[in-house]
């Protein structure tokens, strides 16, 4: 790991840790908290930008390559936008500095998670990423949020426990924590296979893959939607990158090696079921937050399609691109929902009637994110789906690509339904619940996210370079 990258992580984590302390001593306002944390974010981005030079430390545990550099910068950007929108919503709240600090610590954990190359560092950084979110989920302290917090905490600890137990079995059989030993012994020893199952189950909880998806929508629905944006967007994308490192650095790939074949089938089945379940359940919902939550389950399925295609190098591109696009569009969609919920109190589909007339710019941005989630061309969501399904076809799984395309077409239904409610119906909500003078300020971070989405829909080179470097380094 590059020392500059590590410094970026340290700056973020320490800023997040000391912000509540500073708040406790000096009683700073939320705006001062935003300023301090913005300094942390900018320093983080600059330090990552110069992380291609400098000393290497902790090389057994972390690696700094193009992937971690690119995804790191994007995670920091997404987290920065999220923090500003969260501040805009909560700035009257007593604990706003605490929640900003928690966002920063969680971001630092995500940065470590995407660069970990060892099961020790993987577990520690995953915990660092998850621990602050356990408390953030509780944040609004109403009944639903506390229940969601309990549910999220116990599911998260079960996930980590499974991961930990799998890693302990792996250590028992091989005496090592490297990713690569997982593959060397995988089909020779039943206990190592069991360990792999436990590890995959732990990741499945994190990314809400099919058998473990049930907690996701409830938690994302119960907590305040700004926090749900962090959970679905940033931490899930980071978990995808970590899973990519586990899978791709542990298996002998890209060829006739029979090793990857069995795993391919497992991933393909999980992906197909996850997509279908997510989309079908999303169609049945009436609350917009639950629609977005189930669509995040479906998107976990799309990314798993790229994992299933792991015999071709294009799958790395698919995973990376979809993680990047997913991180921005899902975070931004939840943030838009959060702002609409805060200003208009809009929860269900009926509340969304005519919001396009009431909030023209915000509704247009929401439409951009929804179309990107649906996979409409100028946005990044389209090009990422192209890469994912091309990888599936190249790996010889036409059926999986077909299921994916079918699901993609399905999913347009509920995204367009929201758009139709916003633009074609007559308004039902007359007055805003919370009318704020600085209403337009919140459009800046959301607009920036839309710009990044469109930029990545057109300018594909950075992700392709990162993927190429990752593949050549295998």
């Amino acid at each position, binding site marked *: 790991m590059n020392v500059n990258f590590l410094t970026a992580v340290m700056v973020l984590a320490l800023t997040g840790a000391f912000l509540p302390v500073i708040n406790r001593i000096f009683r700073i306002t939320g705006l001062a908290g935003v300023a301090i944390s913005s300094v942390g974010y900018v320093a983080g981005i600059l330090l990552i930008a110069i992380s291609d030079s400098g000393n290497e430390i902790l090389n057994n545990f972390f690696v700094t390559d193009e992937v971690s550099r690119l995804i790191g910068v994007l995670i920091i950007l997404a987290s920065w936008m999220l923090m500003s929108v969260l501040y805009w919503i909560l700035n009257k709240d007593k604990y706003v500095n605490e929640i900003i600090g928690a966002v920063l610590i969680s971001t630092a954990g995500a940065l470590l998670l995407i660069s970990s190359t060892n099961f*020790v560092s993987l*577990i*520690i950084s995953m*915990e660092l990423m998850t*621990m602050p979110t*356990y*408390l953030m989920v*509780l944040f609004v*302290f109403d*009944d*639903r949020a*506390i*229940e*969601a*917090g*309990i*549910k999220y*905490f*116990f599911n998260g*600890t*079960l996930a*980590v*426990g*499974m991961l*930990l*137990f799998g*890693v*302990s*079995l792996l*250590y*028992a059989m091989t*005496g*090592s*924590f490297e990713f690569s030993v997982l593959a060397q012994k995988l089909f020779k020893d039943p206990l190592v296979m069991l360990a792999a199952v436990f590890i995959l189950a732990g990741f499945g909880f994190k990314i809400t893959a099919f058998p473990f998806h049930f907690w996701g929508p*409830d938690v994302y*629905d*119960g907590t305040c939607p700004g926090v749900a944006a962090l959970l679905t967007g940033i931490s899930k994308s980071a978990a995808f990158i970590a899973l990519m490192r586990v899978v791709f650095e542990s298996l002998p790939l890209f060829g006739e090696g029979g090793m990857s074949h069995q795993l391919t089938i497992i991933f393909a089945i999980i992906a197909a079921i996850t997509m279908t379940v997510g989309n079908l359940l999303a169609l049945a919902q009436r609350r917009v937050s639950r629609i977005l939550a189930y669509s995040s389950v479906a998107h976990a399925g799309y990314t798993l399609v790229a994992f299933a295609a792991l015999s071709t190098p294009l799958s790395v591109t698919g995973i990376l691109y979809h993680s990047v696009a997913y991180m921005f569009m899902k975070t931004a969609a939840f943030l838009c929902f959060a702002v609409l919920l805060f200003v208009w109190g809009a929860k269900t589909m009926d509340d969304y009637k005519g919001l396009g007339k009431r909030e023209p710019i915000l509704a247009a941005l929401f439409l951009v994110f929804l179309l990107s989630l649906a996979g409409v061309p100028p946005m990044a969501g389209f090009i990422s789906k192209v890469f994912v399904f091309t990888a599936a076809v190249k790996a010889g799984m036409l059926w999986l690509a077909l299921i994916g395309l079918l699901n993609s077409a399905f999913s347009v239904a509920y995204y367009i339904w929201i758009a139709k409610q916003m633009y074609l119906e007559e308004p039902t909500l007359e007055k805003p619940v919370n009318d704020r003078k600085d209403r337009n300020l919140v459009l800046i971070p959301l607009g920036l996210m839309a710009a990044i989405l469109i930029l990545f829909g057109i300018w594909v080179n950075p992700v392709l370079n990162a993927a190429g470097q990752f593949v050549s380094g295998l």
Partner: protein
Amino acid sequence: MLLAADVHYYLFLSFSLFAVGVYGLLSRKSVIRMLFSVEMIINAANINFVIFSAQRNVHGEIFAFFTIGLAALEAAIGLAIVIVFYKRFGEVIPSKIRNLRW
């Protein structure tokens, strides 16, 4: 040095501890009990680390220390959540709450 034959007993112990922990988490009798189950799952992994560290190398034992730290962290956060839960609902039984159909 541990004999290879003894290892099976310890593996049996850690697997049963893990199974009891998972059962306790899924049965959802009370939040405190679920918190203990989490500890059980983590300590099942810990037993594996320590036992096999005697056979393999010292890495497992070092990682066990990290795991103990993680367990303490999870207990602290879990207890904080339980206190909030108790203050709100006046009980520690999660299955009585139906908002999220858990």
